[in-house]
């Protein structure tokens, strides 16, 4: 990472309290984090560490109790097409075809039909779904659904992609395949990515920086730079450097000091 690149996402002292019944608990305690333009950051940590809270705050779907998220020097105060989100449950509109799903955001931007068509074709091709343009989501496999969701997020040309355990519902083989595809897509059209996962392998393989969080209260425990060059391919997983980094992250996730044992 060069120091000259501008900061794309800035978490400033994010603090989040949730009230469950009559007790309130701290989901995120004073988290600050800068993500540079074009960086691929993964956030990994035990459940309840507030990683999804951070993502939702960046997406504008949640207003933190205190602190703020600043995207490209503008404080986030609601969802914006500049920030694309990819959900674990795909969240495709089941009544729309693949093409119509990808087109959804473009229609909202009132783009002319010919241009919409061109953009949709481009992104369906990018994620390899051209042949399924007229299929309904229910006809797609899990991996295809998620590729459609990625195309939909890319289509509105967001500067940032927020991904909330996007491959969490997929089987292990499909997941590895999707990780490769995501990196390939990202390599061709680079965005700033914040990727939340609970999978250490995934976190290391994708990221240029892994943020390890701790739970109760949710906070950043460690940031680990992944100095492995892009483009990456599956052979990387077999290298010594990768194994070392993976061991580092694993240790940070699973051997956190002072972790409460009721998890």
């Amino acid at each position, binding site marked *: 990472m060069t120091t000259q690149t501008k900061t794309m996402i800035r978490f400033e002292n994010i603090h989040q309290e949730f009230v469950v019944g009559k007790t309130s608990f701290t989901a995120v305690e004073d988290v600050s984090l800068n993500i540079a333009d074009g960086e691929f950051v993964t956030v990994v940590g035990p459940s309840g560490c507030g990683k999804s809270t951070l993502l939702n705050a960046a*997406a*504008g*779907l949640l207003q933190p109790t205190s602190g703020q998220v600043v995207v490209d020097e503008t404080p986030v105060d*609601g*969802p*914006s*097409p500049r*920030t*694309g*989100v990819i*959900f674990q*449950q795909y*969240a*495709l*509109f*089941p*009544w*729309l075809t693949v093409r119509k799903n990808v087109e*959804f*955001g473009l229609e*909202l*931007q009132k783009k002319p039909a010919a241009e919409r068509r061109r953009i949709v074709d481009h992104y369906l091709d990018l994620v390899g779904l051209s042949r399924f343009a007229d299929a*309904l*989501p*229910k006809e797609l496999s899990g991996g295809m659904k998620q590729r459609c969701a990625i195309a*939909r997020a890319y289509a*509105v040309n967001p500067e940032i992609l927020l991904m909330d355990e996007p491959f969490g519902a997929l089987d292990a083989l499909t997941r590895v395949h999707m990780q490769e595809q995501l990196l390939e897509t990202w390599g061709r059209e680079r965005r700033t990515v914040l990727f939340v996962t609970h999978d250490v392998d995934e976190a290391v393989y994708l990221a240029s920086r892994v943020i390890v969080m701790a739970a109760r209260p949710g906070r950043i425990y460690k940031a680990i730079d992944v100095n492995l060059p892009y483009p990456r391919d599956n052979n990387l997983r077999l290298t010594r450097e990768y194994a070392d980094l993976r061991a580092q992250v694993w240790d940070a996730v699973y051997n956190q000091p002072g972790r409460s044992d009721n998890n």
Partner: protein
Amino acid sequence: MGRTSLQLISVLSVVCGIGLWALASVTGAVVVPGPRAVLDKAVELVSTGVLPSDLGASLARVLTGFVLGTILAIPVGFLMGWYPLIRAAAEPYVQFFRTVPPLAIIPLAIVIMGIDETPKIFVIFLASFLSCVVATFQGVVTVDKTLINAARVLGASSFVVFRRVVVPASSPFILVGMRIGLGASWATVVAAELIAAQSGLGFRMQQAQLYYDLPTIFVQLICIGTLGLIMDRALLLVEARLTRWQERR
């Protein structure tokens, strides 16, 4: 077993049923008119124009009440699902009237609205309105929050979220509500005509009862059943078309 052979069994079953019915009436085991007598009566009622006009009268009531009830129920259901305030205000009434059988409203409706078409259409309106409003409202509150968020992050305003996510997502619920409403309307119209009417299938049955005219009662019953079935199937077909996108469990 194949689809066609299963259908064949259904047809055979109906034929056997009619056979048993014929047997029962011929042997005198039960005092009922046979299929032949009922068919003759049906031909007579059709040729004199009595049956078509009764059918027309009943259908007109059902469709008027049903269409009015549904047209009002859908926006009310949406409002109740979307605005907690409206829901809180409307829910006690909806829940209360839902527990009152529509027929129980008839005496009141007749006193207030007179004995012409209005009270009958009103109770049918009420029956279809109540089942459809509850279904629509259920549909709106169960819309997947992730879909709403997905639309919002793509730049959708509240209005767009409503029109392009909430409306399509709740359409299967609305259609189920309409089916239940139509069934309830049909049941209500016949009963209402039994109580107070000068035309319609229910009225004709009530007349036939006075004259011990069993074949006419049978003709009416078969008409009521067949028509109810046809209407239900028609809506089912519409439902299957409009909600083809749904994952079937």
